[in-house]
């Protein structure tokens, strides 16, 4: 039971305490259920801060957990190994941060089957934490697949009219990618004789050097991992499940989906693809940049033509995550650090957008953009917060989105020059075309903001008044739900140094290990 004494174990599995507690609370006591879930998630957030306080940012390697033998027969060498480093600390914090916020957002939105909702939500948190902390491929795979299950139920039970379709699609698409990854995991583990990620990082280079795994195979392995992560991200053209999942998911589900679950994909690239298959990463970087760039432009263009506001934001995720991919495969410090920060940023700003859309949806029960209009006059606080979230999403300097996008584009541009990862194909074009996506982001975000909050008052205002529930501005609980996000939107925008400091040494080490000829 040595594993129980590890702080990261506590962090990962603490939500189960909440699940257990919820199991003993009768389903009618909805508020008690809500408070229990919220309390649990807040404790988890506190634990993540505790982990942060113990985290040594200057140390680039894995910390706060040592591998314990788990399954040790027939050359399996599977460890129970949770660890944290600069690549994951921020995502762990984001998970701990967004979960209570999402739970808070369900306070009045989820009235049916509260108990089960909260249990699934806390189970989901276990899975997400595990994904970001697991340092053994087997363990990682378990957590990775496990996150699908509660999310599947969250969409399928509490979602919109086409929830079942969306839930099954979400499940199958994600699984389609991960089973290919499973094969690659097994292949790598058989060849190297271990499932441990740090172990593989030290052993694989020898196998590459000795020709046990030839470059072609390395590329196939890279692609198999890519299948899992690219679908999750989702990278164009594998994004087809995303609009369905987002549109049908309940608000809290959308927030977590956009905020954390998509990041599992990008994180996977960073944690596994790049360090485990460095040659392949370098070789394929321009291709990934191609897809990322198409995703940026395509996502932005498609987003603009949506009539459903949740879909609009969903497609904007395709565009935003394209930036993350672009930065990551720039394979230089600026790009990767920007990509990590952008993962957080996207979680914050898109999370805020989904929360806000959920709040208005609760009142109007429609997401059709065209019925809205002129809301800023009626709900000034809501409008202002929405404006900030929108501006953050479109990368206004001074807010978080800019710091991420700017560093990503800077890195990607540099990667297009001599010695950079994009030099062999495309060069600076990827960054240049992607920078165009910044304009397009303004187009669709401003379109959304204008059509909902500016202009003449929309028909929905009269309609809800007619039904006896005139549109009201945000109440204190709702403001409290989004306020933390706003604080970080400004904080990261104005003073991102603490965030970069957390990841810089690890990223530096990661980049240094890449076979890029400067």
């Amino acid at each position, binding site marked *: 039971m040595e594993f129980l004494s590890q702080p990261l174990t506590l962090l990962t599995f603490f939500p189960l305490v909440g699940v257990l507690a919820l199991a003993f609370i009768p389903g009618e006591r909805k508020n008690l259920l809500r408070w229990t879930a919220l309390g649990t998630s807040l404790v988890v957030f506190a634990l993540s801060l505790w982990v942060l306080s113990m985290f040594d940012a200057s140390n680039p390697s894995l910390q706060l957990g040592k591998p314990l033998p788990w399954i040790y027969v027939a050359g399996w060498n599977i460890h129970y190994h949770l660890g944290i480093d600069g690549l994951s600390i921020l995502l762990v914090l984001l998970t701990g941060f967004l979960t209570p916020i999402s739970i808070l957002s369900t306070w009045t939105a989820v009235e049916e089957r509260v108990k089960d909702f909260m249990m699934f939500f806390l189970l989901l948190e276990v899975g997400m934490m595990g994904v970001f902390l697991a340092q053994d491929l087997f363990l990682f795979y378990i957590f990775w697949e496990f996150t699908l299950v509660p999310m599947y139920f969250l969409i399928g039970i509490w979602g919109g009219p086409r929830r079942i379709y969306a839930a099954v*699609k979400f499940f199958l698409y994600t699984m389609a990618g991960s089973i290919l990854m499973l094969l690659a995991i097994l292949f790598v583990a058989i060849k190297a004789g271990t499932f441990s990620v740090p172990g593989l990082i030290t052993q694989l280079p020898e196998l590459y050097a000795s020709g046990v795994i030839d470059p072609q195979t390395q590329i196939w392995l890279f692609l198999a991992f890519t299948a899992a992560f690219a679908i999750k991200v989702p990278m164009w*053209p594998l994004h*087809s499940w995303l*609009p*369905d999942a987002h549109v049908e998911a309940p608000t809290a589900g959308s927030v977590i989906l956009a905020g954390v679950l998509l990041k599992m994909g990008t994180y996977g690239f960073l944690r596994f693809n790049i360090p485990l298959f460095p040659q392949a990463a370098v070789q394929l970087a321009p291709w990934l940049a191609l897809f990322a760039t198409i995703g940026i432009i*395509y996502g932005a*263009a*498609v*987003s*603009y*033509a*949506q009539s459903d506001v949740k879909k609009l934001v969903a*497609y904007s995720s395709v565009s935003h995550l394209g930036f993350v991919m672009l930065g990551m495969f720039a394979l*230089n*410090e*600026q790009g990767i*650090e*920007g990509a990590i920060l952008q993962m957080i940023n996207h979680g914050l700003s898109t999370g805020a957008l989904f929360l806000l859309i959920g709040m208005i949806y609760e009142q109007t029960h429609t997401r059709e953009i065209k019925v809205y209009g*002129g809301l*800023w*006059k009626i709900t000034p606080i809501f409008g202002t917060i929405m404006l900030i979230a929108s*501006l953050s999403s479109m990368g*206004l*300097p*001074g807010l978080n989105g*800019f*710091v991420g996008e*700017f*560093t990503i*584009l*800077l890195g990607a*541009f*540099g990667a297009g*020059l001599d010695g950079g990862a994009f030099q062999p194909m495309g060069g*600076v074009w990827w*960054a*240049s075309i992607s*920078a*165009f996506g*910044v*304009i397009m982001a*303004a*187009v669709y975000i*401003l*379109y959304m903001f*204008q059509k909902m*909050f*500016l*202009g*003449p*008052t929309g028909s929905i205002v009269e309609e809800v008044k007619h039904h006896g529930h005139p549109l009201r501005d945000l109440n204190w609980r709702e403001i409290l739900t989004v306020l933390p996000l706003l604080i970080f939107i400004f904080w990261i925008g*104005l*003073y*991102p*140094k603490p965030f*970069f400091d957390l990841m*810089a040494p690890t990223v*530096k080490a990661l980049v240094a290990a890449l076979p890029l000829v400067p």
Partner: protein
Amino acid sequence: MENHGFAFLAPWLVFAPVVGLLINIILGGWFMKQPWGEKAIGAVAVLASGAAFVVSVLLAYTVSAAHGEALTVPFAQWIHIGTLELDWTFRLDSLSTTMMLVVSGVGTLIHIYAIGYMHEDVRFKNDIPRYQRFFVFLNLFIAMMMILVSGDSYMMLFVGWEGVGLCSFLLIGFWYDMDTLGRSSWANSNAAKKAFITNRIGDFGFLIAGFLMFWYLGSFQFDQVFEAAPALAHEHPGIIVLITLFMLIGVAGKSAQIPLYVWLPDAMAGPTPVSALIHAATMVTAGVYLITRSAELYTLVPQAQYIVAMTGAGTALFAATIAVGQYDIKKVLAYSTISQLGFMVAAVGMGAYVAGMFHLITHAFFKALLFLSAGSVILGLERGHHHLAHHGHGHHDGHHEEVFDPGDMRNMGGLRKTMPVTFWLYMIGTLALAGIVPFAGFWSKDEILLDASLHYPGVYALLTIAAFLTAFYMGRQVWMVFFGEARHAAAAHAEESPLIITAPLMVLAALSLLGGGLNLPFEGFHNLGHWLEHTLHEVEALPLNLQVAGISTGLALAAIFVSWWLYGRNPLKAKQPDPLKKPLGLIFEGMENKWFVDEGYWAVFVNRYVDISRFLADKVDWWFWHDIFHEKVIAGTYNWLSNVFLNDVADQKGIDAFANFLGRATQWLSAATRKLQNGFVRSYALSVLLGVVIILGYLIFK
């Protein structure tokens, strides 16, 4: 930090307005419920802006005490990754302090003006609570503008650069639920969006320039960039050309140059103080500031300089022609602004940075004056109209049969009598803009023309024609607005504005009158030149050239005469078409309709983008990718395959068909399979047998 006088105050350039806006956000709602609420809000905002002005003065003093030496005031780290080191650091030198003074000075005056203007505006528009929001935005603008001019690196400048774009968006769309005439409409919010997006196109250029700069020059910090630039210019001059030209795209966006100027006329949807402050005096000059700031880059690449100069000169002329054909008092001024910005860009393009900055300053004075006076005129008409609506018709049901446009010059006329103060203020502004001695505009414009005449004859020609047109359209405006007879009842009942509005105008008028003194073309009077020399290092101080000055003055006077001939001699009557319409024919049609540039852009870019994105979204992504590919192909194949193998196909027909095939091989088997069609147990057995046959076949014949 060493003791550098008041340099430590630099962050307060930004903090002062931010404090002001925070106070107004937090307490504004409460203020608005008090009888003195509007005044309190206005006072807070004015004090905040005024504080920034005081800080600017102190900083300018500090710089001058340090003999123009550039001071940097580090405040905080921003983005540090690898070699990328971006900081929140303020830069104090003669150039930045000049800009600070202009921004906060003119800004404060306009804040004061806005107290009076908005008081009436929110009442005409029937939405008093929005008063609070205006001053929050205005303070935010000052803060952003201060970041823009005081940043020590291109990226900090960029923060302000986009920040003012945001404020511009917010303020253009201030009356977001109506059009300029107060009708419920998307028009104003469309204008706001257009401004932001057009600016973003420019920002794209800025960003690319930034990337090139960082990877080739190693930094964003001004001094480091300038230090590394000559070496790069030696090795890869093309890169510097690229940097400067991409920067020009940014400038074109922000300073409304060809081809991105189209947002500025629409921006007049914002309340008049906004037009004056943001879209005339300060924000739009940011591009000029950027080029001046980057002088050391532009100087290295004459080709790029030439392109900048030609862009500016072309814009100056092009916009001036459009201004001639406009009827809206603010639109004329808007195109005039574009034109004057063209003068400035042309100047800095030619390397005449001092001339450009000089014109920037004087233009800030007289164009702010003109806009604010125009605002006063519009308010006057609104008052007249309001008066009519209440007294003339007895009841006011909100549905005018004919919507009254208080900004349309065709509704004006004869205001000289009803609004005398405004008239005189307007006249000073007009003369300054037209370039009549000794108003400020004359000196600054003359300096630009002089520079052009020495080095760039093409630019000189364009600018001279533009100057002629400038005087003409201003003359036309004055005759139409203030002379002749009122062409609308509202004009006849127009009322003069109160002191809170006219007082700031008087200050600006004084500045417009005397602003030329900053940099007179006489030995010993090149004050601005010497001041900026600390930052720009090499400036040429040219003496007055009587030939150039003579030509421009002569042309200006001629233009005013022509305008009198056309519009003053026989004042326009109501509904009478413009007298230029007939002689100029199609040309006037073009001027009137802005040469159809908007329509062209719409047809070529905007509609195409909408089409493409609709096509991608509806056809490619949803219809094809989501429905056809993922639903029909993937999911469909899935179900189809499963059905193929299902009882009625595979378990029966599939196997049977296969058996039939074998059956043709031998009569006997064929007879067997015919009977086999209704036997399930036996078809199962057949399946087993087939398996056996295939396996054995493989083993034997492999």
